[in-house]
């Protein structure tokens, strides 16, 4: 192998190893992996199954909240959520119809909610403001209207 080839092959492999170590550390040591909650639900009985029989914002502890949410064409239930600054919020979500997306613009919250699966994602809102919530999985004719807001104050 040519000497220059050795140089760039070594640097390339080193770079890949560094990237993988950083991402592996984030995922396994810091819990920053993509949302992948392994819990199933009968999609036809979402509204009768706990906790989805009572969707809403629930206080779980000191500055700790759970938002139980149903995503159904073409709305988020509950909508217009209000939370205090610094709240650690776990969104527990299910869909009774088709795949929906749950993205909060300006944050790392981005999850796919599939019928038959319960999805969970946790985020701490450190900044006050009004956050736009969007469905980012095409879910039908009214997909572009499927949005709401989270107000942090």
């Amino acid at each position, binding site marked *: 192998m040519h000497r220059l080839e050795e140089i*760039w092959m070594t640097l390339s492999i080193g*770079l890949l190893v560094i990237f993988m170590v950083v991402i592996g550390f984030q995922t396994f040591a810091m819990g920053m992996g993509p949302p992948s909650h392994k819990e199933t639900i009968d999609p036809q009985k979402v509204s009768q199954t706990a906790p989805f029989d009572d969707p809403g914002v629930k206080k779980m502890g000191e500055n700790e909240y759970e938002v139980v949410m149903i995503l159904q064409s073409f709305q988020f239930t509950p909508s217009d959520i209000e939370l205090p600054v610094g709240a650690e919020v776990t969104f527990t979500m299910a869909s009774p119809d088709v795949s929906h997306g749950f993205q909060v613009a300006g944050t790392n919250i981005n999850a796919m909610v599939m019928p038959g699966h319960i999805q969970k994602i946790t985020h701490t809102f450190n900044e006050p403001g009004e956050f736009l919530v969007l469905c980012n999985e095409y879910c039908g004719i009214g997909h572009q209207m499927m949005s709401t807001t989270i107000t942090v104050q």
Partner: protein
Amino acid sequence: MMAERQLSRSTQSVKSSNAEDENSLRGTLVSVGVVGAVIIIVWVSVFWLYMSRV
């Protein structure tokens, strides 16, 4: 005699062009370096964007 000369010329030119090819890997190194720099910049940007939103 003529043919021999031509043959030796052509082998010389083959040899010299081989030597040029080896030197021209510098250009390849620079190109690979540019691609690598772009990859590093994009990766670090996405990493920074994610960490700034945690």
